[in-house]
């Protein structure tokens, strides 16, 4: 344990002890003090990284195993349906899945239903593929179909006829004859479809308009706040789910554990789990202290 981590734990522990002392005396905690402590709780574990052990959950493991089980050269569609607000949770999932898919020798078609998703997709294309897979060739190993306006309308079309909606890739090259899209007539022809997002359109619309009607294998990576509404689709219409930063951290752990050449890759999902875990602990402690004050004041009102 480094000095920085000890300092972090002392600061957060000290703040919670002070809060507990005030609460036990029946005094409310000032809102500005709560903001200050939450700020420190998030910032310090980022400055002095706090690492935890991660065990992939069955929902994450099923996506990982599915990509592992596909024969090399399989075609996978990745849809970036999110914005910068969701990016800290969802972008790490998209990046690590891209690495896994290319490391297994599969082919990728990238697309987006969100205008902002196109830019998030470019982050993967600029930061992951040229760095870790310089040998991967556009058109042969991957293709960027880009953003299309129309939300569910786009999904309705590609469920029947993908080239009709995407006659060219994002840079205007005809998609017909591209090896990355060889034999693909509709989204149902892909071996696996993964949507990253948490809003609308997002994984839910993918299930309703593509996965369920075509029967294609589908998985989702979503912000933690959106994960509960996707559980009804697991495991029949959605083979796996990565929920929030924890899902990303679990996937990174599984991937980095098996592929030694990526053992030192950037793992933002795992890194973000330090501040996220500490923030959760502080919020839980605040809930407990809030109830201490509540029951104390109720008892005092009862005896008065």
């Amino acid at each position, binding site marked *: 344990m480094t000095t920085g981590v000890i300092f972090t734990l002392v600061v957060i522990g000290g703040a919670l002890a002070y809060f507990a002392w005030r609460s036990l005396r029946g005094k409310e905690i000032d809102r500005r003090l709560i903001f200050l402590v939450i700020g420190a709780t998030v910032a310090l574990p980022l400055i002095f990284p706090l690492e935890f052990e*991660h065990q992939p959950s069955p929902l994450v493991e099923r996506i990982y195993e599915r990509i592992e089980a596909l024969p090399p050269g399989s075609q996978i569609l990745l849809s970036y349906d999110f914005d*910068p607000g969701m*990016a800290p949770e969802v972008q790490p999932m998209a990046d690590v899945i891209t690495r896994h898919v290319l490391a297994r020798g599969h082919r990728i078609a990238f697309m987006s239903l969100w205008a902002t998703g196109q*830019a998030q997709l470019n982050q993967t294309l600029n930061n992951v593929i040229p760095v870790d897979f310089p040998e991967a060739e556009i058109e042969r190993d991957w293709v960027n179909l880009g953003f299309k306006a129309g939300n569910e309308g786009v999904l309705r079309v590609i469920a029947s006829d993908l080239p009709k*909606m995407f006659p060219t890739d994002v840079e205007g090259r005809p998609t017909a004859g591209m090896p990355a899209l060889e034999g693909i007539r509709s989204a149902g022809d892909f071996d696996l479809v993964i949507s990253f997002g948490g809003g609308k359109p997002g994984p839910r619309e993918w299930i309703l308009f593509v996965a369920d009607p075509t029967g294609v294998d589908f998985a989702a990576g979503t912000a933690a706040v959106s994960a509960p509404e996707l559980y*009804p689709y697991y495991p029949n219409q959605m083979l796996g789910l990565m929920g929030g930063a924890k899902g990303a*951290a679990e996937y990174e752990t599984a991937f980095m554990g098996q592929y030694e050449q990526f053992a030192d890759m950037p793992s933002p999902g795992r890194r973000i789990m330090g501040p996220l875990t500490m923030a959760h602990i502080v919020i839980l402690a605040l*809930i407990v202290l*809030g109830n201490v004050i*509540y029951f104390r004041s109720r008892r005092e009102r009862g005896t008065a």
Partner: protein
Amino acid sequence: MNRTLPFLLTFIVGFTIVIATFSPPLDRLAVDTAVFFSIIAVFAMILGGGNLVKINLVKITRRQRDWQFAIVTLVGFFFVLIIGLFKVGNPGGVTGQVDAPGTPFFDVYTYVFVPVGATMYSLLAFFIASASYRAFRAKNREATILLIAASIIMLGATPFGTMLTAWIPDSLDIFEVPNLHFFLMSSPNLAGQRAIMIGIALGVISYSLRVLLGVERSHIGKDGG
């Protein structure tokens, strides 16, 4: 005419998609209609942009409350629109990709929009912490159940939850936080979500029928009904 034409368009397009969905031979028709929808959706962006300009100009000219922010909105809107539309500073010229790395459009998105968007979302942490402390109290039985369930979900969303109950023997592993978290999400949450989804679906069917048959015309505007 103002009322009849939109109603007829809604009726024809709506029923075309409904019938085509249940008639595989008409699938091509449904696909073509969805393509029309995507084309119209692009025009909706122009409409949205126009609306944004109009609302903010009115705000500025009438000196309404916080009108200064409207200036920031319009300056930001036109700045990004111009550098994107005319590909200002794009190394590839007007034929280059609009959001290629190194272009002003790329820089504005990466170094302004991304951090600002993430900051807005991150602010939630502060408000959630404060609200949890003040409002999340075991005032009655329902609130207590909610409190316990929320605590398990929060713990289950972190590795700390796993560490906390790692000592529990395998025979009692249902009480480990990750398993409790999965149970809550895949049983009570799933039941509630499905009930909500089925309710919403029934509501959507009912409302759609009202729109398609012209009973509900509020989408046409104030002249519509």
